[in-house]
């Protein structure tokens, strides 16, 4: 066995810090390029432009407007759809149904989670129901919905509530459960209980997961709605974006099909980046609950 060696003896040393004037840079602002590249929105815009260029080049190369129209043709169809008033009308119709279904789903989710936090049997109910229904695609319920509610908004609402309810309820519930014991005790210490405890302590403390649930719910509702409209399309003489896509496909107006899809994408981007992003900035980011 080797004897563990002592540390090597060295002389001490004393540093002589020079004044900052002696060397060039202590702090220097970044160049315009570096700052621009640090901007997430700009980076994403550059990506989108590259994708659009790739699409245009590819579509021109295969030169088959019936299968893949060019980006410019899609833009033109989109523009014509808007100018003609068809696309805005269809979009407004879809968005209206969407908001109705989304709010109904959230309201039900709130009711279910309130039951789940207040009683143990409520927790069991939520856990059982969500593990049963969460994996079930909303669109799979559409035939049943058509049978029960017929063609029209009630069927749409039914499948949308199904697609919103479970992700929102699950995320909210797991957010509530993750609220620290200390915060709960602080709330009780201030004399809060029941509904006021949920509103003043649990909801804000679980807000990051609630927001995640709302985002997922929104995306699910949107895709369920478009899919459902594709299946049964028009009701009471008016259809939404899904119907617009379906109709144009039947008439082989392929650029308009793309324009419809383009519109779906644009709305998704807008809601994510304008609505949810602003809520995030004003709440969880500001509170330091998410970086």
């Amino acid at each position: 066995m080797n004897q563990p060696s002592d540390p090597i003896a060295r002389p001490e040393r004393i540093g002589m810090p020079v004044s900052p004037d002696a060397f060039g840079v202590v702090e220097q602002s970044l160049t315009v390029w570096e700052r621009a590249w640090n901007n997430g929105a700009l980076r994403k815009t550059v990506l989108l432009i590259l994708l659009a260029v790739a699409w245009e080049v590819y579509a021109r190369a295969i030169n088959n407007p019936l299968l893949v129209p060019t980006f410019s043709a899609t833009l033109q169809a989109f523009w014509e759809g808007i100018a003609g008033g068809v696309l805005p009308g269809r979009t407004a119709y879809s968005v209206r149904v969407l908001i109705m279904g989304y709010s109904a789903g959230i309201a039900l989710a709130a009711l279910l989670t309130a039951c789940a936090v207040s009683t143990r049997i409520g927790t069991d109910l939520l856990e059982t129901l969500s593990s049963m229904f969460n994996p079930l695609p909303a669109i799979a319920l559409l035939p049943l919905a058509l049978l029960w509610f017929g063609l029209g908004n009630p069927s749409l609402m039914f499948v949308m509530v199904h697609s919103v309810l479970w992700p929102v309820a699950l995320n909210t519930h797991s957010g509530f459960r993750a609220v620290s014991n200390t915060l709960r005790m602080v709330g009780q210490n201030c004399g809060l209980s029941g509904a006021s405890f949920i509103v003043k302590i649990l909801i804000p403390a679980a807000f990051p997961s609630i927001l995640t649930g709302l985002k997922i719910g929104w995306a699910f509702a949107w895709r369920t709605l478009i899919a459902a409209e594709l299946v049964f399309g028009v009701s009471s003489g008016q259809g939404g974006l899904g119907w617009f896509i379906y109709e144009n496909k039947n008439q082989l107006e392929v650029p308009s099909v793309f324009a419809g899809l383009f519109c779906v994408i644009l709305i998704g981007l807008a809601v994510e980046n304008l609505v949810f992003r602003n809520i995030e900035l004003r709440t969880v980011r500001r509170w330091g609950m998410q970086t």
Partner: protein
Amino acid sequence: MTGGGASAPLLDVCGVTLQYKTRDHLVTATYRVDFHVCRADRFVLLGPSGCGKSTLLKAVGGYLAPVEGEIRLGGEPIRRPGPDRMMVFQEFDQLLPWKTVKQNVMFALTASRLLAGQAAAERARQYIDKVGLTRFADAYPHTLSGGMKQRVAIARAMAMEPAILLMDEPFAALDALTRRKMQEELLHLWDETRFTVLFVTHSIPEAVTVGSRILLLSPHPGQVKAELNSLPSGDVDSAARKTLEDRIHHMLFADQVEDERIPRG
């Protein structure tokens, strides 16, 4: 919070046995603990980890009911948590992250319906000034240091002007320098307002610094070993302090092998 009759204790803990359940055990945390806290006491519960001192404090807070014995505050038995017993916790996350410093202090006042509106804002400002955080009144908790967060929690609890302030190792998660400063500040605040505080700690020096009276608890389960008078506040480095600390150390660790420090005085 004026000095009442010394004969009538403010807090009366009488033969309290506390038990709690873990996943597969029933743990007895304390066994037949008695003590009285009088007005303007700085009463310290001191003991090694696992002596049930925090559990005891939670029982006084009303979060846990005794299986035996009774806890009375001003003659009334304690049944549930309430704003007359404000608690300061060890954890930094006791502040509501979605509220600023001022809103945190006001939250306790308004949620308990003690004060509202302008009166609550005024009271909050007054206590934030007291703990020296005037400049940070509109800051969110995540921008504050650990010591500042604890100051906010103390301001929030004191602003309620509770009958008794319960502090659960409030300085344990702080660095040594900050902890020392916070202890001094707490004593300074006590000099100003003479509040009653029940303070839990596992540090002997902290108990001697902060406390006016010290209850020593034995571990597993917690039972009263002794109830001692501390030194007059402000006595920082005297021989008397060293003697008292060594005496406490000897009492707590006499019957077990301890390698943390060599006790002899």
